């Protein structure tokens, strides 16, 4: 088979087209607001997106499997409150709290994953149900009120800066994406995730335990949401049961903007980070420019549509 291996703009575009959207946002907002393009503000956005970003790493894996996880918002709230509870009420050290939270989130992921694979409950419905169940537990635990009294060392997780300027959660997000990149693109585990997501039957017949991999991605998604939960609680300085109702949709939007397709098997995790930033900068920029809330909604919707359509340009020209 002959192949002309020249630089292909289409291919480059398909892979990195999403960056253009980010650049356009930058240009527009820099022109529109004097305070937008400051180091301070950019790091601020960095912190704001890091929670969605961290959870988006796990969500990417779930979407690569052709599944979906709607429960991350509830997990965020639950782990946030639980960690506050553990810190404030039981004075547990940070490391222990971390281990417990990761354990608990992993159990949530395990349940969702098992229900999806073994009981064949479509993941959309399964995680939707998990979402309201976990919400129920959150409120049973907190009685609906927020939990305050965190010490500064805990708050550092959400509010602190490294080198005096880089927000701590942003660093965690970048680490999460790098780990996600290595796992998905460099290890055999990643190859198998793509394989199972691309064609489950083929993967099964190649001797891959598909269920194990699907469940693992749900665990990953829950764990990343759990970590986001701890950081979010630290950032708010309180455990808040009511957060997270739009979280799943934000994470999902970031992931899909990043080019991960819902059918599974296709997507590149580093673009998801860019997707998160597109959303974060848009929210920040619109507030900076003082756009009316109602118009903010409309603009956001239009930008999402535009962004996804742009990154699909090569598809659009195809027939059928």
């Amino acid at each position: 088979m002959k192949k002309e291996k020249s630089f292909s703009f289409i291919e480059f575009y398909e892979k990195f087209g999403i960056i253009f959207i980010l650049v356009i946002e930058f240009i527009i907002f820099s022109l529109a607001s004097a305070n937008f393009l400051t180091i301070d503000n950019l790091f601020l956005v960095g912190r704001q997106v890091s929670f969605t970003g961290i959870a988006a790493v796990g969500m990417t894996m779930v979407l690569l499997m052709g599944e979906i996880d709607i429960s991350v918002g509830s997990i965020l709230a639950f782990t946030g409150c639980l960690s506050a509870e553990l810190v404030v009420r039981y004075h547990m050290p940070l490391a222990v709290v971390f281990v417990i939270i990761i354990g608990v989130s992993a159990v949530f992921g395990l349940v969702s994953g098992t229900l999806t694979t073994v009981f064949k409950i479509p993941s959309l419905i399964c995680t939707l149900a998990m979402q309201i169940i976990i919400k129920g537990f959150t409120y049973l635990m907190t009685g609906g009120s927020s939990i305050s009294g965190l010490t500064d060392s805990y708050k550092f997780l959400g509010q602190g800066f490294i080198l005096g300027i880089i927000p701590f959660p942003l660093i965690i997000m970048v680490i999460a994406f790098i780990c996600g990149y290595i796992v998905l693109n460099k290890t055999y585990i990643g190859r198998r995730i793509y394989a199972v997501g691309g064609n489950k039957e083929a993967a099964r017949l190649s001797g891959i335990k598909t269920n194990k991999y699907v469940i693992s991605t749900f665990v990953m998604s829950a764990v990343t949401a759990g970590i986001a939960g701890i950081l979010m609680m630290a950032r708010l300085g309180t455990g808040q049961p009511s957060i997270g109702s739009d979280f799943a949709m934000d994470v999902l939007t970031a992931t899909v903007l990043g080019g991960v397709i819902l059918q599974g098997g296709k997507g590149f995790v580093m673009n998801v980070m860019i997707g998160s930033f597109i959303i974060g900068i848009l929210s920040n920029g619109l507030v900076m420019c003082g756009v009316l809330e109602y118009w903010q909604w409309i603009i956001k919707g239009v930008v999402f549509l535009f962004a996804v359509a742009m990154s699909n340009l090569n598809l659009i020209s195809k027939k059928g």
Partner: protein
Amino acid sequence: AGCSMDSTVQKDDKKEEKTKKEDLSEINIGASVMSLQHEFMANLVVGYKEFKEQTGVNIIITDGGNMEPDKQVTNVENYISQNVDGILCQCISVETMKDTLKHAMDKDIPVGIYPYDTTVGATTYFGYNEYEWGEKLGETASAWIKDKLDGKAKILSVTTSLEESAVERCKGWTEKINDTCGEDNLTWNTVEATSASDAIDSVESALQANPDTDVVLVYNDELGIGAYEAIKQSGLDTTNMFLGSCDGTDTVLDYVESDSVYRCTVGNDKFVSEIGFYWVENMVKIVLGMEYDDPFPIETTAITVDNVKEYRSREPKYELSPEIAEYVKE
């Protein structure tokens, strides 16, 4: 001919059944709150439960999910169908609830509602309204502006158009401050948020755009917590800054007490859980044909660093009124 606005299946024997209640545990009260996701409502429910504990009255609590009026309609309809003896409803939207509540009253179910909107024709009302709360916050803020900011201020309102109560409160403080300080001396900005994490994002961004903001007014404590963290983390000089909100929940009282930038939260003379307790007691009185309060009396107070100690000095008290207490003993 077969069309009507009322279901014709009526149980006529229902009324007799209702007049006589031998045992408090036979009484069913439906209590629909706006959304259990708000701390204020969660505390209200604490009061309901306390009352249930003490008297054995059965209280069925529901909420409007994400503040959805149609869910609340469904819940109240279910109460009616369940034949409860009284309905307490904290309306997300009073306009929306009107028809359904009328159905309840048509069936002789006494109804107690928030807000204070007499066009509903309810049996009893909550004695405060959102507008007044907003005004109270505005009053405190105005005093601060005059005192510390030479009567000039840049104000950031944090509210949401998704909730009627938020809109009312925001209207309350805006009008009050404009009246007291004069519109010309003020610059207003608004951001929207529906959760604490939302609030922190929007306030952070707004402060980046307007670092010279002096006053931040938030429609409830939950978002106030987000705004508080945003201000604290912005590194701005807060000596003359004013952050205030409504609800009077514990977490915020802590902040107010610690003499932070959180200067004020508007609350009631009673704790929220107490309100819940006495509010449901009031309804039980109606059911039992006793004398009751209308409107249910609540004083609005602004809690600041000056009076927070005093405000918090007492423990919540859940004391049944004598006539009910007697019933319980029997």
